[in-house]
């Protein structure tokens, strides 16, 4: 066994040596490594839609490209007051359909060329072209023209007066450098070398991408709003959420955007003295969507769920608060209507209805649903009250909640068959309307105008074919208001709640993890790392020194 002992000793020595050899340079002290679930493949405004509409692309693009202005802390998208100047130093309203922006003369691209009005006009010409950016063009449909007045002033013309004119001009896209891109045909841009090394005007500039591993950015030394204290930003790829958490807990990364299930992971992070947990409201709202049409024949109403009282009964049979608390703890709230935690119209909305099993049973009985054959499942004219509940197997939260929903509905005599699908399959079935109840989750824009997509009769993503003409008219009134009009939006929410096209289950907060050496940590709900340039580094000790 001497040779064995020698072999084991040599192996242990090698591991011990490898465990201690990991020199971090001085630069590591002012760097941040963010563990991320996706690779930034095309982090360029106007290109980030369809297959490129990923959080990873947005996270990197937000560091490279500066918008004309950013949403303020209230996240109010209506009016002109709740925004913070960025590339635009100021803006003035000429009339109800004309907005003029004055660009900050100090702003330059990363290659040193000044940012001009020509760049803004160039960007919006591309962004408003459906052949180039079909989704963006739809969002900017109410901008009729963008023109330059000299080098520093750009004027936006709108088709009509409405409250979110400024929001439309600044939120959806950031200016691109026309001097680098004008010669590239728009449809060839995605494959152009520019995409592999983008040049922007933001607080960080592109350094490199190591395929499958990380994207590295460096502080823009010429950034006119102040050079960031964090000198290097590395978005490090780990597709698996547990691998991301391991990276952070193992000292290989400084931050990540969402502690994965189970909840015991939160305790693991909280137990660490060098890490902090930061709750951040998200744009995510999860809901049970009732199909209004028969999944087997979309021309016919759904044999069970087209009745409003049945939908309401399902909502009343569910103790949403209890389920959400048990599954997500304090990381989520039950919303009133389709409102994520970042949607400003949720403030002042009434509290969501609580569970009322007695009333649920009464509503079902009134519609003729009774347990005639004593099998524990309600039935009517020989048809059992049996429904499918579909969701994607990529969401642990929805899967956990679905099991509880199944059990709670069983107690009122509704049989639910739970179906889980791979996301692409789930999405295809959902889009085709092949479901009874869809446990969906949507990432909303900060603007309430997005509600029209899912809840108006002709809404482009209204896969359940829910249609209430009153909701449509209320949406139109609220969307055309020239001020914030919170009451008009709340009327929309009240009407949607009354029609019960869905049961709104949760508005989610993410629990971010950030190393404690960073201070002034602000994580933006609408774009996680947008405020990274304002973070500071408190301690000189680099990450990982406490570990191996």
């Amino acid at each position, binding site marked *: 066994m001497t040779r064995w002992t020698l072999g084991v000793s040599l192996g242990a020595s090698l*591991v011990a040596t*490898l*465990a201690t*050899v*990991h*020199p971090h*340079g001085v*630069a*590591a002290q002012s*760097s941040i490594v963010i563990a991320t679930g996706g*690779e930034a*493949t*095309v982090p360029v405004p106007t*290109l980030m*839609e*369809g*297959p*490129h*509409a990923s959080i990873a692309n947005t996270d990197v693009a937000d560091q490279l490209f500066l918008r004309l202005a950013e949403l303020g802390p209230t996240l109010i998208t209506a009016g002109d007051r709740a925004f913070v100047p960025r590339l635009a130093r100021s803006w003035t309203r000429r009339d109800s359909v004309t907005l003029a922006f004055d660009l900050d003369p100090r702003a330059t691209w990363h290659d040193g060329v000044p940012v001009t009005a020509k760049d803004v006009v160039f960007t919006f010409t591309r962004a408003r072209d*459906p052949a180039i950016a*079909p*989704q963006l063009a*739809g*969002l900017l449909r109410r901008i009729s023209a963008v023109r330059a007045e000299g080098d520093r002033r750009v004027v936006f013309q709108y088709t009509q007066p409405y409250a979110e004119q400024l929001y439309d001009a600044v939120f959806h896209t950031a200016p691109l450098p026309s001097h680098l891109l004008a010669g590239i045909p728009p449809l060839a841009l995605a*494959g152009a070398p520019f995409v*592999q090394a983008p040049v922007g005007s933001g607080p960080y500039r592109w350094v490199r991408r*190591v*395929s*499958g591993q990380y994207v590295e950015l460096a502080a823009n030394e010429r950034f006119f709003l102040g050079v960031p204290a964090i000198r*290097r930003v590395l978005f*490090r*790829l*780990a*597709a*698996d959420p547990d*691998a*991301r958490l*391991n*990276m952070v*807990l*193992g000292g*290989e990364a400084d931050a990540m955007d969402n502690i994965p299930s189970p909840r015991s992971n939160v305790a693991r992070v909280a137990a660490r003295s060098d890490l902090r947990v930061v709750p951040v409201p998200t744009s995510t709202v999860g809901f049970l969507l009732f199909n209004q049409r028969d999944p087997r024949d979309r021309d016919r109403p759904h044999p069970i769920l087209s009745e409003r009282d049945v939908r309401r009964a399902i909502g009343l049979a569910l103790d949403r608060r209890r389920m959400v608390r048990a599954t997500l703890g304090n990381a989520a709230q039950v919303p009133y209507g389709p409102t994520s935690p970042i949607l400003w119209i949720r403030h002042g909305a009434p509290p969501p209805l609580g569970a009322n099993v007695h009333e649920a049973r009464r509503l079902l009985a009134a519609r003729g649903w009774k347990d005639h054959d004593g099998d524990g499942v309600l039935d009517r004219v020989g048809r059992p009250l049996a429904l499918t509940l579909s969701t994607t197997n990529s969401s642990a939260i929805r899967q956990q909640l679905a099991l509880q929903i199944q059990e709670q509905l069983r107690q009122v005599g509704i049989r639910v068959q739970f179906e889980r699908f*791979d*996301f*692409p*399959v789930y*999405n*295809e*079935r959902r*889009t085709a309307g092949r479901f009874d109840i869809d446990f969906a989750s949507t*990432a*909303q*824009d900060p603007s309430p105008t997005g509600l029209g*997509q899912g809840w108006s009769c002709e809404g*482009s*993503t209204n896969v359940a074919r829910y249609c209430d003409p009153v909701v449509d008219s209320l949406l139109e009134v609220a969307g055309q208001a020239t001020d914030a009009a919170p009451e008009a939006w709340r009327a929309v929410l009240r009407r949607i709640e009354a029609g019960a096209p869905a049961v709104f289950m949760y508005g989610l907060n993410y629990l971010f993890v950030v190393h404690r050496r960073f201070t002034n940590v602000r994580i933006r709900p609408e774009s996680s790392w947008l405020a990274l340039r304002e973070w500071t580094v408190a301690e000189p000790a*680099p990450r*990982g020194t406490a*570990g*191996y």
Partner: protein
Amino acid sequence: MRHWLLRRTLQAALTLAVAVVLLFLLTHLLPGDPLAREGAGRPLTSVQREALQARYGLDRPLLEQLGTFVGGLARGDLGVSIEYGRPVVGLLAERLPATALLGGTVLVLNFTVGLWLGVRQAVRKGSAEDRWLTTLSLAGYATPSFWLGLVLAGIVGVRWHLLPPAGMRDPLIAGGTLAAAADVLRHLVLPALTLSLVSIAGTMRYQRNAMLETLRLPYIVTARAKGLSERQVIWRHGWRNALFPVLTLFGLWLPILVSGSVFVETVFAWPGLGSLAAAAVNGRDYPLLMGASVLVATIVIVASLLSDVAYAFLDPRVRLS
């Protein structure tokens, strides 16, 4: 021999051609939308989807898409990834080194440690060492690699802080090439160990049985009778012949290490072909998925061919039959 080799190569080429067509059709029959992304903000409208489908050529008839793909393949062009917006060939080339490093390490460990232990067991058949190595190899063979990976990452990487639990290299590492190489080595240990522990177990058992069969043959008795040392009998006469069956194992293991390490690459965030292929499947990125599939199919067929050729080269009975 030359005629046999030519025939065998043509068979391999035909197999690859059939595999390419089948893979293409099956890939495109998968349900799912290559333009939809989980977590994306506003979903695409039908008009927007049609515009993007036209851009990526997804609106063309399937046979036309197949023709385009095969034409490109003949020129060494696997198309452009929908997700990455870059040529698939370049993407595969970027990820291949990581897979080759991990797979190569595992293969080396497998065919050194595994073979050595297998021979050792056979020679010491029935001993205490044989018994506990058999128990260990059975346990290793029965252990799912993704579970082992999770345990090693959680205990060695996170709890003990001995080795990095994920990634291939620390982007903040300072120092020269040596420091960088040591860093990659540190990151390699856990994924390589995870795959090796499982694969070595199989090789050990295979080699042990082959060696036991060989050691029973009369020429081994003759070798001993001639007065050769035990080392010479075992390694020069016994092991050489017991190696043939293991060549088959090499042909089987090579493609598994390229394509089958998806779970391990995911658990350890190892930037190889497996994780790239997994992302392509999840995103229904047809060009990338096809590129990865064709590469793996090629490796499988070539490995099988090489295995046959090696067999035929070493054992004349094979090519004569």
